[in-house]
């Protein structure tokens, strides 16, 4: 993994869920028999109420939440014909993935969080370089003696989200929107094949939400990285997702083009009529 500048597109990995169940130690069932395939380079919006399993779904993809049964495959998910997938990189099976292989997968799957999850008391640059940790020897990372190549990569990532001038500021000095863009730069520094975003705009105001969503959209379009983004706001999901997956009580209740989802499908997903709180921009009158 030494080639840093191979941004030649079409690097996204596919993701396949096969009869995935997740039961938490307290007995709560996060996912019920979820089967779906996400193609390399797709941008998928996952919608549903709080507790519907959105966070669980994205967290199973990088193994932060272990699956109870079924199988998740990340990498080459083309049926049978694996011959042409030689350039696609490693393929991971989550049900048995542990230790070093799990960290290798995580290094290829970037994650964006609702609360940004930056180390607030260190610089923006150091936070972005967290995305390079997997490729950095332990002694270097403990001393903070980053490779010049990695620093360059981190700077490029910050340029892509247009916040490079803050590289040496403390993360705590940034606004919420800026912090989220730093978090996106951190995932970009991983040179990931997949980006998972768990409610990335839930802590942001509407204009900033659009900036962050456009960043994700551009990354998906320009770099061909597969993007799976959890959203609570339906208008954002329809606007930025190519495909929408609706979850309700841990089950997939909708899977189709985001543009085709109308109010009745959304009410089906939510199990109730829509309210003004389900959309970011539109006034209640539009939906009622």
């Amino acid at each position, binding site marked *: 993994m030494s080639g840093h500048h191979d941004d030649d597109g079409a690097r996204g990995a596919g993701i396949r869920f096969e009869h995935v169940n997740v039961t938490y130690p307290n007995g709560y069932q996060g996912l019920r028999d979820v089967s779906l395939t996400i193609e390399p380079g797709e941008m998928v919006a996952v919608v549903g109420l709080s507790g519907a399993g959105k966070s669980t779904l994205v967290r199973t993809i990088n193994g932060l939440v272990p699956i109870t049964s079924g199988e998740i495959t990340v990498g080459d998910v083309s049926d049978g014909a694996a011959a042409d997938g030689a350039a696609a990189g490693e393929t991971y099976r989550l049900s048995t993935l542990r230790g070093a292989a799990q*960290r290798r*997968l*995580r*290094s290829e799957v970037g994650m964006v969080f609702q609360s*940004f999850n*930056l*180390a*607030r008391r260190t610089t923006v640059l150091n936070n972005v370089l967290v995305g390079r940790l*997997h490729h950095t020897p332990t002694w270097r990372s403990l001393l903070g003696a980053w490779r010049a190549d990695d620093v360059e990569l981190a700077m490029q990532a910050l340029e892509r989200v247009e916040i490079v001038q803050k590289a040496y500021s403390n993360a705590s000095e940034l606004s919420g929107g800026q912090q989220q863009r730093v978090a996106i730069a*951190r995932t970009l520094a991983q040179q990931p094949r997949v980006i998972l975003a768990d409610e990335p705009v839930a802590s942001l105001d509407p204009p900033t939400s659009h900036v962050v969503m456009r960043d994700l959209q551009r990354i998906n379009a320009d770099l061909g990285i597969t993007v799976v983004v959890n959203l609570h706001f339906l208008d954002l999901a329809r606007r930025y997702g190519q495909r929408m997956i609706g979850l309700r009580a841990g089950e997939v209740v909708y899977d189709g083009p985001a543009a085709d989802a109308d109010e009745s499908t959304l009410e089906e997903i939510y199990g109730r009529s829509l309210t003004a709180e389900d959309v970011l921009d539109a006034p209640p009158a539009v939906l009622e």
Partner: protein
Amino acid sequence: MSAPTLAAPRPTTTQDRPRKPAHVGRKVLWLVVVAVVVAAFWGVDISWDALWDMPGKLWHYLGLMFLPPAWSQLPAALSATMLSVAMAWFGTALGVVISFPLSLLATRGLAPVAVRWPLRAVFALLRAVPEVVIAVLMLSVTGLTAFTGALAIAIGSVGTLGKWGYEAFEAVDGGATEAATAAGASRAQVMRWGVWPNAAPEVLAFWLYRFEISVRASAILGLIGAGGIGKMLVDNIQFRVWDVVGILMLVVVVVTMLIDQISGTVRHRIITGRWEVPVVTALRRRSVRAARLEASPSVLEDESRDGTVG
């Protein structure tokens, strides 16, 4: 109509009113505390007569000590203090080096229970034993030297620093940790970049604070003969050289307060990111107030002018 009063018809729901709590435990506790205090007074066998002429004697000895103190002994007192401070500094530094990895191993989420709990027990044990006792126990091995004192301080520091360390690491918000984990970092890397940046200011401040404590402890360690200011103090008290005792007291108090102030200022800078030197801050506050006073007449003028125009 009139406002509802207590005489108004009561709601028909049958709510059971709670019984007034008896707080038996609380009463028993008070009884025990009082009993202990009374017993303690009986136990220490106070000689009330001595207490009666204590103020007079106190003045007498204060006079012997400070009218005037033995200024000629100032250099010797200072060098003895420096030895005490050196003892504290070396002991704390050693304590930091030992306690840091141990506190990591005592942190939930970083080490298994089988490692964590024994370590925590060791920290608790070390905290329970005063430095003086540790030093006395070590005397037979390392002898009556300042090094013994430093080692005693180091061992004592491990108890407090270890506990403060793992508490600080556990208190760190889990977000950065989760992010580093999700990026494929190893456990050590998660610690370095997920936990340490957010815990570092507190931990550094703890180290300095522990140094302040150690400075005081080092003076006490001198009393048992581990060298430094405490030893000089106890020697001079034994031979009733009160004016030297006076100068030693002065030096101890001044140096300890000075170290507390400097260390406290640095700690404040580490935690808040701003320098706040006590004297300078007071001056700046005064100048700000003066500037505001100077500015205020014109402000008042502006306000009145606005008022008349409006």
